[in-house]
């Protein structure tokens, strides 16, 4: 299960003599999240490297999604959610960033492809339009570039004005990736993006993730451990709201240091 094509990047900050701020895109300090009285995430400390794909695995209710949704403050939409702790994006506390700007910088792909029932073009242009871009030529260019980045352009370029709901599930998920890319995000959060997709569509989504890594930092929450093994540089294992272990994907999948990680990867629980 080792991934030979995509070796892990340099280990924790300072290896190349670079300061932490350059190595780390996102730093999470003592993050605790509650939904009502249930604690979803317990005292999480984690640094996410620039331009890496961080895979996050773990059984249901392990806090993976709550963690992910905290990074673009989507948890703010839930009235019963309370979070304590810090999330730093490029060393800046995300609570001090306007959420609308933050969500432009930290994009999100949901588990089910959520194409809006409007045209393909309007789906992609939605984000840029909400941020004030009205010029048609500029929008055209953004749409084409975003669709190219998820390898969808060739498939849909002749029917941009058709409803996005006519696309297949896999195409819709890549449309959602393009829609997020149209905002030029620095970090992309993938929340089990392939859970409803067939193997071929999954491969296409994974291919685009590997390409996106050149420009963005990617956090991939997945229920499919094999997917984490295939694409992620490092993998984190969550259990019951706690980070059990984080290491290079190779290490996690060959010689995990915690018994529970090994048990989960071997399919003994979860």
């Amino acid at each position: 299960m080792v991934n030979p094509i995509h070796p892990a990047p340099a280990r924790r900050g300072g290896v190349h003599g670079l300061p932490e701020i350059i190595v780390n895109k996102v730093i999470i300090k003592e993050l605790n999240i509650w939904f009502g009285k249930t604690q979803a995430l317990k005292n999480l400390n984690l640094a996410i490297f620039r331009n890496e794909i961080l895979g996050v695995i773990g059984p249901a209710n392990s806090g993976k999604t709550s963690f992910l949704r905290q990074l673009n403050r989507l948890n703010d939409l839930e009235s019963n959610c309370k979070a304590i702790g810090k999330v730093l994006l490029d060393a800046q506390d995300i609570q001090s960033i306007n959420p609308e700007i933050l969500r432009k910088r930290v994009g999100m792909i949901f588990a089910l492809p959520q194409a809006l029932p409007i045209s393909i073009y309007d789906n992609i242009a939605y984000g840029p339009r909400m941020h004030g871009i009205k010029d048609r030529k500029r929008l055209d260019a953004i749409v084409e570039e975003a669709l190219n980045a998820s390898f969808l352009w060739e498939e849909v370029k002749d029917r941009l004005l058709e409803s996005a709901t006519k696309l297949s599930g896999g195409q819709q998920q890549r449309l959602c990736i393009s829609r997020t890319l149209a905002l030029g995000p620095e970090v992309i959060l993938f929340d089990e993006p392939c859970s409803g997709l067939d193997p071929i569509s999954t491969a296409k989504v994974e291919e685009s993730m590997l390409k996106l890594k050149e420009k963005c930092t990617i956090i991939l929450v997945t229920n499919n451990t094999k997917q984490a093994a295939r694409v992620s540089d490092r993998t984190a294992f969550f259990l019951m709201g706690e980070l059990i272990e984080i290491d290079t994907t190779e290490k996690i999948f060959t010689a995990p240091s915690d018994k529970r990680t090994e048990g989960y990867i071997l399919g003994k629980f979860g």
Partner: protein
Amino acid sequence: MKTPAKQKIAFAILFLCTVIVVLPVLFILAVVIKNGWPAINWEFLTTMPRNNMKAGGIYPAIMGTIYLVSLSTLFSLPIGLFAAIYLNEYAKENMLTRLIRLAIVNLAGVSSVVYGLFGLALFVTFLKFGVSILSGALTLAIMNLPVIITASVEALASVPYSFREVSRSLGASRWQTIRHSVLPFAIPGILTGAILSLARAAGETAPILFTVAAFYLPNLPHSIFDQAMALPYHLYIISTQVPGISQQMRYGTALVLVGIVFSMNIFAVIIRSRFRKKKKW
């Protein structure tokens, strides 16, 4: 008894109940059309009543109803829609919103004659609008508000939560999300509810009784501060207050009223069915 036989009997009873629901509607339609149709002609629809309302047409009553319905829409649709947006999209679930919801449900249950008295007290007397189209339209608007709000809240709530989530995740503000990702998909449902409530307004007698309706006017109203005749009230007076009016004329008036209400309802059903075909989520 074997299960299939039981099932057949159960289905038969259910079917019978359905037929019982539909029968009165068909019966009313049949009676009104049979007795009223001979009265319907161009003159009946477009001329003033003559000879103490025993002859001539019902033109002013038709126009009065159209004025009332359109003006009350102008008041109730925006207010109802904005209230619904607030309730469904902004309001937090607390004591106050629960009270508001309770008030709306109760308003919907208040009998229409109470609205009439309320309109008389507030618009006619207190605000000094007099017995006028304005007073009547406002009274009808208040009567319609709970229905429009309830229909609009339902239409907004039927738009999947994921649309809002996606829109917010793309950095849209709360209002942008409502404006671009919720309202466009709720509009048909809102319109359907609004039209149905207007159809009800068109047919109500009690709310306009004290606030606008005139027994007989020689001219059409000139402004919203004039009184007006209206179909349901006209039907009421020619049926009970004026002796010697032909049955044909009464049923003719009823047919016009039922026709207006029915065509509005059918219009609403068409909007709804077209929307359902387009709906893809």
